[in-house]
């Protein structure tokens, strides 16, 4: 029969799509939807759509409304989607593209999920997807979303294993919650004590995709685009006093090469193979002059630092031009530590000829009026005089600081300086540098951030993308590099209190970000809530996400006893062992408590044994009274005790007793002891006749 079936069809026998319990599948699909959420901004939209369609298809098949595709259609769908994927990725291999391939694989797997085995395969992939999500998103909200998805998966597994669980039994959520509560102490201990080893090998960067933030080229319009974003760039915590607003110049990179209208870095940043990830951002409490920066991922090696800083933590190195670089591009949140030395006057040194050439570079033509102005100034004034004159010009003439500068397509610097007189910091910094260089004074554009608002409780500063800024450094003989900021001359409010105040009149602050709480600076509640959220996230980043090698060692060094990596290993093994042991004891104890009621059974059994060794075999289904009677016949001396005992057994089983179980049990045991003694005495008297087992 089976044979004919197999031969007659000649096709793969299609298992019904609803072999899996529907509700279990629903949990899985729900978890998948949640896991896609943290990746919404990096996944191609077609992929999300395709995954949605495939999951819905699977669900409809479960409902019996459509059929799951056959082998050919399935292969077709797979090939098409993979082709689209390959076309989108275009050979870039990054963790990002790998993650989207992973998502694609999950999407395709939906059509193949027929058996329990497939269900588990999906479960495993989804758990790993949750892990992958953590590579991209580590803030507390997305983390909770991720954990929620994992919880859904675990509930789904319970449903799979007991689909028809009656409603009066604890539900999957309750059971999972109970399990979590019981295991949480061990999890916390493991998290704290599991030795944070150095990476075993270096891994590719997480993302190959552009992130918002400062870039290493500056066209006049660039920074004003950035100024429309309220995303966080970094947070800084100071050991001592927080510098005044106007001194918060966070230097990121130096642009010293003018290429037409675009400022670039003159020295190419040498390509470096990304090293292993080093998260060690400094140990112990902050010293008075030290500060910590917790930087959002930028995928770049630039670290932002106040003027006159030096590196404290090992994950940043000082490179030329007083700049700091990470050893590996910041593809996840980075914490680093620097210290401020007020006395650093690097001015003493001379510029070498090569450097002088580098900072005087200009395109051979363009902006003739600016060049003319420079020539005129340099004929009359000293270097310092030219700088002053230029700033005075910005201050006194009708220059405007605006987020909506007009287009200045040709000879932009001339147009800005002489015609339009409207621009953003990047315009003015570029123009100032141009004029200074034309006048023969070495100058460079510095890009970074300026400002930063206090977070909740004033513990740290939050620097956002709209704090991005560009300014100028000029080489004055005898003084070294001196910062000049044309923006100060044009719009002092920008430097004194930030972009919001500077743009108050124009109303262009965060025009496009309707939802950003920063836009509503005057609504106290919104501000307060957003700052509190940021504070929670800050602590989360510092203590949970950032709990790595050095911070672990730091914590351990505060505990008594020198705990090194090896000791941590032992400790972890100890925690796991102790956890297992305690859990085992606990469950054994629970079991024992469950068996308490059987103590009566034990007493009864002991009585039966006593009867049997007295030569009175226990009959099946015999009542205690009957047994007592027979025992009394065989050994008249125990008649009274046996009958009393039988009465007690009866009353235990059939009458609601006024005594507590413990008391009753104790009395029964005592009585049994008496009975046994009497039996022994009786058998000693009868020794010659009966031999009743070696034990009696």
């Amino acid at each position, binding site marked *: 029969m089976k044979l004919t079936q197999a031969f007659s069809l000649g096709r793969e026998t299609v298992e019904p799509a609803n072999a899996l319990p529907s509700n279990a599948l629903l949990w899985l699909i729900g978890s998948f939807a949640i896991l896609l959420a943290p990746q919404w901004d990096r996944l191609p939209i077609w992929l999300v759509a395709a995954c949605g369609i495939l999951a819905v298809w699977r669900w409809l098949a479960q409902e019996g409304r459509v059929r799951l595709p056959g082998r050919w259609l399935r292969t077709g769908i797979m090939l098409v989607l993979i082709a689209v994927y390959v076309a989108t990725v275009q050979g870039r291999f990054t963790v990002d593209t790998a993650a989207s391939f992973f998502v694609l694989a999950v999407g395709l797997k939906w059509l193949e999920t027929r058996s329990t085995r497939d269900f*588990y395969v999906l479960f*495993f992939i989804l*758990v*790993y997807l*949750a*892990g992958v999500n*953590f*590579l991209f998103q*580590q803030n507390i909200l997305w*983390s909770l979303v*991720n*954990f929620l998805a*994992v919880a859904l998966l*675990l509930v789904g*597994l*319970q449903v*799979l*294993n*007991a689909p*028809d669980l*009656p409603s*009066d*039994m604890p539900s*999957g959520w309750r*059971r999972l919650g109970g*399990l*979590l509560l019981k*295991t*949480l102490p*061990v*999890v916390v201990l493991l*998290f704290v004590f*599991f030795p*944070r*080893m150095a*990476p*075993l*090998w270096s*891994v590719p960067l997480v993302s190959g995709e552009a992130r918002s933030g400062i870039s290493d080229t500056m066209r006049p319009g660039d920074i004003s685009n950035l100024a429309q974003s309220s995303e966080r760039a970094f947070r800084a915590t100071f050991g001592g006093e927080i510098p005044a607003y106007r001194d918060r110049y966070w230097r990121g990179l130096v642009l010293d090469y003018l290429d037409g209208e675009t400022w670039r870095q003159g020295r190419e940043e040498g390509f470096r193979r990304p090293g292993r990830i*080093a998260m060690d951002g400094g140990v112990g409490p902050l010293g008075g002059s030290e500060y910590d920066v917790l930087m959002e991922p930028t995928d770049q090696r630039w670290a932002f630092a106040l003027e006159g800083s030096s590196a404290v933590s090992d994950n940043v190195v000082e490179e030329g031009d007083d700049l700091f670089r990470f050893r590996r591009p910041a593809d*996840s949140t980075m914490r680093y530590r620097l210290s401020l030395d007020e006395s650093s006057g690097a001015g003493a040194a001379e510029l070498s000829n090569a450097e002088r050439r580098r900072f005087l570079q200009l395109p051979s033509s363009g902006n003739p009026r600016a060049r003319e102005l420079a020539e005129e100034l340099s004929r009359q004034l000293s270097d310092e005089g030219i700088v002053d004159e230029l700033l005075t010009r910005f201050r006194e003439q009708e220059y405007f600081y605006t987020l909506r500068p007009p287009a200045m397509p040709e000879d932009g610097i001339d147009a800005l300086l002489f015609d339009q007189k409207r621009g953003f910091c990047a315009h003015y910094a570029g123009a100032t540098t141009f004029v200074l260089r034309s006048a023969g004074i070495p100058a460079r554009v510095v890009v970074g951030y300026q400002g930063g608002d206090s977070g909740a409780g004033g513990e740290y500063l939050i620097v956002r993308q709209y704090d991005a800024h560009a300014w100028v450094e000029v080489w004055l003989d005898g003084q070294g590099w001196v910062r000049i900021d044309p923006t100060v001359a044009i719009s002092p409010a920008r430097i004194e209190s930030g972009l919001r105040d500077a743009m108050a009149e124009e109303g262009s602050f965060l025009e496009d970000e309707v939802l950003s709480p920063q836009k509503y600076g005057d609504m106290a509640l919104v501000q307060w809530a957003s700052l509190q959220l940021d504070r929670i996230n800050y602590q989360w980043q510092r203590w*949970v*996400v*950032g709990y*790595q*090698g050095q911070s672990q060692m730091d914590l351990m060094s505060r505990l008594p006893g020198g705990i090194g990596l090896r000791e941590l290993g032992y400790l972890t093994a100890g925690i796991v062992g102790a*956890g*297992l042991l305690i*859990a085992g004891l606990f*469950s*054994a104890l629970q*079991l024992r*408590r*469950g*068996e308490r009621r059987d103590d009566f059974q034990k007493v009864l*059994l002991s009585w039966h044994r006593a009867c049997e060794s007295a030569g009175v*075999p226990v*009959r*099946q289904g015999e009542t205690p009274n009957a047994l007592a009677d027979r025992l009394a016949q065989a050994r008249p001396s125990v008649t009274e005790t046996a009958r009393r005992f039988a009465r007690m057994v009866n009353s235990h089983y059939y009458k609601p007793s006024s005594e507590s179980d413990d008391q009753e049990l104790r009395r029964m045991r005592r009585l049994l002891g008496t009975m046994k003694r009497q039996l022994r005495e009786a058998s000693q008297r009868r020794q010659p006749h009966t031999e009743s087992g070696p*034990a009696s």
Partner: protein
Amino acid sequence: MIKVFRERWQRWVNRRVPRSDSQSFNQKNIFILPTGAGVVFGILLLVMLITGINYQNSLIYLTTFLLGALFVGAMHQTHRNLSGLRLTVTQPGEGFAGDEVPYRFRASAGNGPTIAIRLSCEDSTLAPFHIPAGQAKDVSLPVPSAHRGYLRPDMVRIETRFPFGLLKAWSWIRPVSPAIIFPRPVAAPDAGSTVEDGDEDSAQRTTPGNDNADLRPWREGDLSQRVMWKRYARTGQMVVADWEGEQGNPQWLDFYAFAGADNELRLSYLAWQVLERAKASTPFGLNLPGQVIEPDQGPAHVTRCLRALAVWGEEPPRDAIAAEHGTRRHEAPREKEAAA
């Protein structure tokens, strides 16, 4: 080598799970191991840990620890799911050879609920069932039978994979009471035409096995050919040789009626005849070597006859008698006496 190991393992298991119609499960006899999925889960955790180390990602560490701890938690949960449970054979089944015979069990949960328990025996598996704490449930497990006689499943496996299916806890019950498997009914050859012919009779009488034909007193309606006249001449008793009781008297189903058939086939014919008689609700008696069941009718009678057919010539299975924990070996037989 493997065989030796397996035997040793079996002996060890048997010590922990003695033959008994009632088995309660506790640390002593619950076995727990990860399932295939559980092993893969372990590998997944390892991969996640390595990912966490290489990306220095605390949250992946955290997820790994969380899942690892849950795995251990699930181990206890799975174990507790079985422990405290008591499984009792309430009725070993009856059925025809080749069919699946239902074995009835009563499962009573301990002080915790028992969820998604699966009973299985060889190829037959019962859908998972649940018992709330402190309650009991009757289930019947179909056990495949191959031939007539006593059937005692060596080991009935009880397993649970709840909650996550990553671990399985299992144990066995080794029932004492055997099921009784009736011979598979085989349509008996219609021997009716051979009745009248006396020559055929004499031919049959020479076939081996007829010597020990049962003799029984003459009754109203017995054919005169059947009467052993020689014996009547000697003793004055009318005795009828009953080797062809079937043909001779429709009331009697006779083991010796089927010349040339082997014993098992005879029993199968008889089983068929019993069922036919039961269907027609005509009274009948059964004549087996060593056992005669007087003619009667009704379901109880049918069952009695079928049982007699089932166990004819079979010894009830017995092995080392299960001793309750703590009883001394030599007392066990006495217990048995008392029970009998």
